[in-house]
């Protein structure tokens, strides 16, 4: 069953940006791009050749592929619904997030390889925000491990059930909010970054990949969609006590959950404006504080 879910996830990942965009379009009263637009983009890009700057070296040529490979490898450790990943082991939660980081590092190096001021700026901001995000994510991990006593992504995330919510609901809710903020930032969504903007100066992730084209850009598009899917899965498993239901229902709930979170991201993007760049670290500090408060609440009141 895990394999079915895994391949379904690989297949459905580019749908998430489509859902988000449809939600935003609905809010704005537009038709918006098609639901499957990301698929069309990727297929079209894969058929094209590449334009690569003469400034660049092998770094830019390899970066998108390595970024995609790292994200795909990370996906191997993700549990889906109530199904454990077949390669899960105690401690894979660290490997998972470090593999995502590896994908990001490849893109940062690729961006610097072009020697462009825009991409340098994008890479600089990406490095800054991801460094701040990393500590939030590990705070969340610390909380989950504190809660479940297990060190692997599969066992700890699947281990959450109704009792977790009834006994530790407050702290769990705080952690979910903090992780949602980290999710938005790591996947360059509004209010941290705007994937739709066309002004290089204001972008982060999109500025970083300006000089990739053709199949390279398709890889980046797919890898970012997959990363978004994985982080959404993480938060769905964190929130939904899937353990309490039957396997089939849990599977449906899981995919339904991903859909709902995607819609929520769309709503958030519609109702919140982008934060000023200088304000973003304060949001991160707030999210980290939330996580640490959650850990304290758990250790003092709920243990």
């Amino acid at each position: 069953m895990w394999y079915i879910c895994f391949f379904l996830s690989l297949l459905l990942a580019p749908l998430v940006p489509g859902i988000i965009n449809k939600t935003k379009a609905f809010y704005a009263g537009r038709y918006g791009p098609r639901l499957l637009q990301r698929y069309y983009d990727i297929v079209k890009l894969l058929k094209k050749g590449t334009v690569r700057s003469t400034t660049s070296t092998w770094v830019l040529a390899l970066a998108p592929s390595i970024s995609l490979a790292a994200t795909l490898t990370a996906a191997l450790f993700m549990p889906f619904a109530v199904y454990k990943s077949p390669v899960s082991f105690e401690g894979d939660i660290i490997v998972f997030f470090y593999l995502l980081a590896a994908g990001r590092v490849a893109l940062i190096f690729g961006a610097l390889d072009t020697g462009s001021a825009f991409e340098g700026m994008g890479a600089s901001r990406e490095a800054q925000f991801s460094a701040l995000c990393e500590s939030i994510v590990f705070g969340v991990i610390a909380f989950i491990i504190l809660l479940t006593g297990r060190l692997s992504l599969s066992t700890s995330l699947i281990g959450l059930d109704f009792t977790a919510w009834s006994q530790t609901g407050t702290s769990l809710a705080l952690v979910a909010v903090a992780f949602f903020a980290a999710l938005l930032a790591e996947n360059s969504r509004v209010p941290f970054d705007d994937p739709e903007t066309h002004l290089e100066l204001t972008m982060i992730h999109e500025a970083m990949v300006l000089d990739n084209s053709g199949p390279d850009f398709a890889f980046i598009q797919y890898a970012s969609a997959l990363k978004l899917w994985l982080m959404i899965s993480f938060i769905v498993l964190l929130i939904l006590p899937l353990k309490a239901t039957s396997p089939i229902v849990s599977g449906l709930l899981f995919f339904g959950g991903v859909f709902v979170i995607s819609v929520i991201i769309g709503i958030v993007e519609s109702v919140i404006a982008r934060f000023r760049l200088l304000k973003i670290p304060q949001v991160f500090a707030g999210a980290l504080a939330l996580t640490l408060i959650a850990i304290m609440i758990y250790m003092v009141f709920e243990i």
Partner: protein
Amino acid sequence: MTAIPILILFSGSLASLIFKPRYSAIFGCISACVGSVAALVFYIIKDGSLIFSYTNNFLEIFFMIPIALLGIVAAINSIGYLKGHSAVHVKTYWFFFNLMLASMFSVLVLNAPVHFLLAWEAMGITSAALVAFNFRTKESTRATWIYLIACHAGAVFLILMFIARTAVAPNWTVIFILALLGFGLKCGFMGLHVWLPEAHPAAPSPVSAIMSGAMINLGFFGILKFGINSVSPAAAGWTFLLLGIAGALLGIMFAMTQSNIKRLLAFSSIENMGIIAIGMGLGFLGLSRDLPLIASFAFTGAVLHIINHALLKGCLFLCAGAVLKATGSLDMDEMGGLMKRMPQTGTLFALNGIGISGIPPLNGFMGEFFIYMAALMGLVSGGSIALGSVGAAVSLAFAGGLAVATFSKAAGATFLGEPRSEIAATASEVSPIMVLSSASLFVLSVCLSFIAPLVLYKVGAFFDMSLFSNAFFNIFIAYTSFLIITVTVLLLRFQLLPRSKDNIPGMTWDCGYAKPAARMAYTGTAFTQPLTNLFSPLLQPIRNLIKPAGLFPGPASVQLEVSDGGVRFLWAPIFDRISSFARKIHPAQSGRLHAYILAMVVATILMLAWGLLAGQDQPDPENDNHQPPVIQYSNGD
């Protein structure tokens, strides 16, 4: 038998002084290599079975590995590095290089306190002589002074520590604090680190590689061997943990802001020493709570990270040496585009930089992984150790994120993009001997990254097989699947797609601007400027801003410099106080002979008076069955 490697190194150092310059390089290099190989054979391989059995001299053998490996590689690299230097330079270099290696091995081999102190001092002085390699420049002189002062201040604390150890009832807390101060000066704990960012840039790169990869570790060796014997593990654990967190976070923050490539690497060494200290702290906390699983994971992580750091940082310093050799500068903002001109060095630097940021599957990850595991297991066990674990995990993650920023800046500003100056544009790849020697370190570290999961298996098998039976196997699967997926994706990208080989060379997107220049690209300083701003309360950057003024603005510029906070806010004020006090009592040193004689007479009279007064209440000599203190030196554990 134990003396053979040291004797080889000694004779090599003498030979390199005696013979003609051309032969002295040959003798020096060969004896350094042979001596290190002999050390490997006599100390490490001969007792190799001991490495995983935690016997008495596990510590000594373990800390010898980085010295021997880096000794060989750095000696070979030096041949390329020293080309073009004068005969005197070459001769003295090899003399001190061999002596430094010999004294480092002696530090590990000798057990008696006096011998140990002598070897320790010799290590400091010989390496200071190498730091003074470019003794005609002002920076080098300053660096040598700071380094010598740090060495001797450390020695003072160590002498006090050894005296304290001879007491009948030693006060272990005092001994531990003295050891932390004395040895901490060597391994660069935050606050005591000031010599690192000065000495590393001044020293020749092969020497920096040895100092950073092998010598500063010896501080940990000293603390573990002499300082820790009967200190409560909880106290030691918290001390190490807090020192480690401070070192890791502040070290990498300062590293991030540097524009001198070797200063950046030196600050990054402080960070890595911090990570090792975090590992040891968690290990001692685990011991204090009788949680052997956590303790062994944490100590294994620290130990692995020492080796990883030696290999990766060694290679990074050698690459920095290659850059210096090729361009004559260490300022990253002057470089750019070196990847095209020095592809091998550039590739090595980039990969090692990613490795030391802890990104899998390179080997920097495994050491941190073990420490993370210890922290996460500490969480589960609850209590105060959980608090420490949250701190350790969050700060490790944060330091890891900043390390990514630091090393993408270092590699990006130096090797990627377009050259920003003439020296960078005309650089060319260094001699194969320099490239190969640094590449050999990288090959070793890649091998280690695939062997390291085996350590997990060993440690896991020690305790609870059910918990980690599949961990070793699955990490291997993770690495292998990463490799397979990467190869598949690359095949898809470069072979299978319909137009995968169509590559139209173009120019970098410039937003429609007609004449992009290298000066418009992001510099290293610009790259980390947002983070520098964010942490400016901690870093206190110095900003020189010349704004454009008037109706027809002239040239404008902005400079951002972050100097070492330890010097600026801790040591400079202290030394200023001392020197102003010294100036106040300076008049006493008048140069008049009769004034001195008067002072001596007064002092003698006072002492006589004191002796007479104090002598009255001395105990009766007959009751004094005072015995000489029993001197015991344990051999560490």
